């Protein structure tokens, strides 16, 4: 709470700049920072990806283990998505159980994957009603310079696409790769003074009052959406955000997910 004045000044700076058509790092309004996706960095995990968007760094690991199915879907695999905003990643993150921000991050990524039925869960049944594959998607945030959700969602789908089944480890047989049928991509925009900006960095995220994450699939359909922040959005603004969402998702998909 001691840094409020600095924060105010910074917000004003970001705001004024945008009013004059510019962003703090010189990008265009719809432009992403540089993205990099490095896969299979963690050999202990069945799938993994280190994603950087600008200076935001997230490591996602996918682990596969046999476990019990849910009673209402006895023949389907189970997805468990978890996000850790470890205190390493920001002076604002604190050790302890997941707070509302980590929970939201994990749940939005999870819904994007679930909504698009990305993972063919019905193929992850080992023994009906008894044993299925549990897919643990763990999002480990290492450096927070804004827009965690796009990086986390990209890390999740990149990890899933490359994940192999540890059948041998558990004395089981079956396919070698995790069955994936879609590639949901999250695109986040913020509204600042009536302007819509894609891929907000931390300063912009703090200056904005409303943020919208739009998750869309290979066929252009939407499989997840989440507005956050303490401001409201007009219908036209949302329409623009959705449009940017679908467009940018396509670009990212082509560049980083098609192999």
């Amino acid at each position, binding site marked *: *709470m001691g840094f*409020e004045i600095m924060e105010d000044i910074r917000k004003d700076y970001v705001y004024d700049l945008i009013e004059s058509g510019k962003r703090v790092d010189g990008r265009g309004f719809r432009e992403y920072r540089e993205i990099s996706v490095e896969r299979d960095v963690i050999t202990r995990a069945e799938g993994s990806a280190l994603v950087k968007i600008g200076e935001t760094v997230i490591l996602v690991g996918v682990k596969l283990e046999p476990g019990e199915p849910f009673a*209402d*879907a006895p023949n389907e695999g189970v997805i468990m998505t978890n996000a850790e905003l470890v205190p390493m990643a920001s002076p604002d993150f604190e050790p302890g159980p*997941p707070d*509302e921000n980590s*929970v*939201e991050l*994990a*749940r939005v990524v999870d*819904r994007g994957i*679930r*909504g*698009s*039925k990305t993972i063919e869960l*019905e193929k992850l049944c080992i023994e009906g009603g008894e044993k299925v594959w549990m897919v643990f998607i763990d999002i480990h945030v290492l450096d927070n310079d804004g827009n965690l959700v796009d990086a986390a969602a990209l890390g999740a789908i990149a990890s899933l696409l490359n994940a192999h089944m540890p059948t041998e480890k558990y004395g089981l047989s079956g396919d070698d790769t995790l069955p994936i049928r879609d590639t949901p991509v999250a695109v986040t925009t913020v509204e600042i003074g009536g302007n819509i900006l894609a891929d907000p960095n931390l300063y912009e995220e703090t200056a904005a*009052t409303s943020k*919208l994450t739009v*998750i869309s*699939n290979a066929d*252009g*359909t*939407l*499989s*997840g*959406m*989440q*507005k*956050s*922040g*303490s*401001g*409201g*959005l*007009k*219908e036209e603004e*949302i*329409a623009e955000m*959705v449009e940017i969402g*679908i467009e940018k998702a396509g670009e990212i998909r082509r560049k980083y997910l098609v192999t």
Partner: protein
Amino acid sequence: MMKEEIQLIKEGKRLDGRGFEELRPIKIEVGVLKRADGSCYFELGNNKVIAAVYGPREMHPRHFQDAKMAVIKYRYNMAPFSVDDRKRPGPDRRSVEISKVSREALDPVILKEYYPKTAIDVYVEVLQSDAGTRTAGINAASVALAAAGIPMKDLVSSVAVGKIDGEVVLDLNAVEDNYGEGDMPVAMVARTNTITMLQMDGRFSQEEFERGLKLAASACRTIYELQRTALLERYSESMGEGEA
């Protein structure tokens, strides 16, 4: 793909007899609790929720205070018996997220700068659940805030739209939610068409999404009128009391 295929639309009607753009019955009661500064009971079909508001009051612990405005806290909680399989008491990840987006749904209308350093606590208890509890909770909370005399720019109204058997419909119930293709809870300031909450689950085409959003906006205007009416009735009642 789904656990079981269930036909949710028959002869142009939904299983509970509703049309595609029809809300479930709504019942609003204001001032149902003694201790709370403001309260509201809200029924949406088989959903039964109560919202209570306390504040503005002292913020504890002090280092969470905001020197420039009130801090809004929102706690969405389900009674253990509100769902088919007993829910373990206490917050889970779902309720943590719902509490966050619900708070952010109301935040834009509350004149927080009137009460620096204080806390405004909004508590929503779900007594019975039938899909739509977060929207019912926001509707109730909005009324309870007004009843507590918290200065607000306007009321917030909330409803979900969903997709069943390929159709975009209003206000899913639990069966529709379980077997449908998508759900999209929305909250807005109905008068100004300002969206303050927007979530999506499932799969919508861009066109379906846009249609759904318009459908939600229209239903929010209906709910807004019901909220206003309930507050007015309560107000005139208490005026009546004052005169007696």
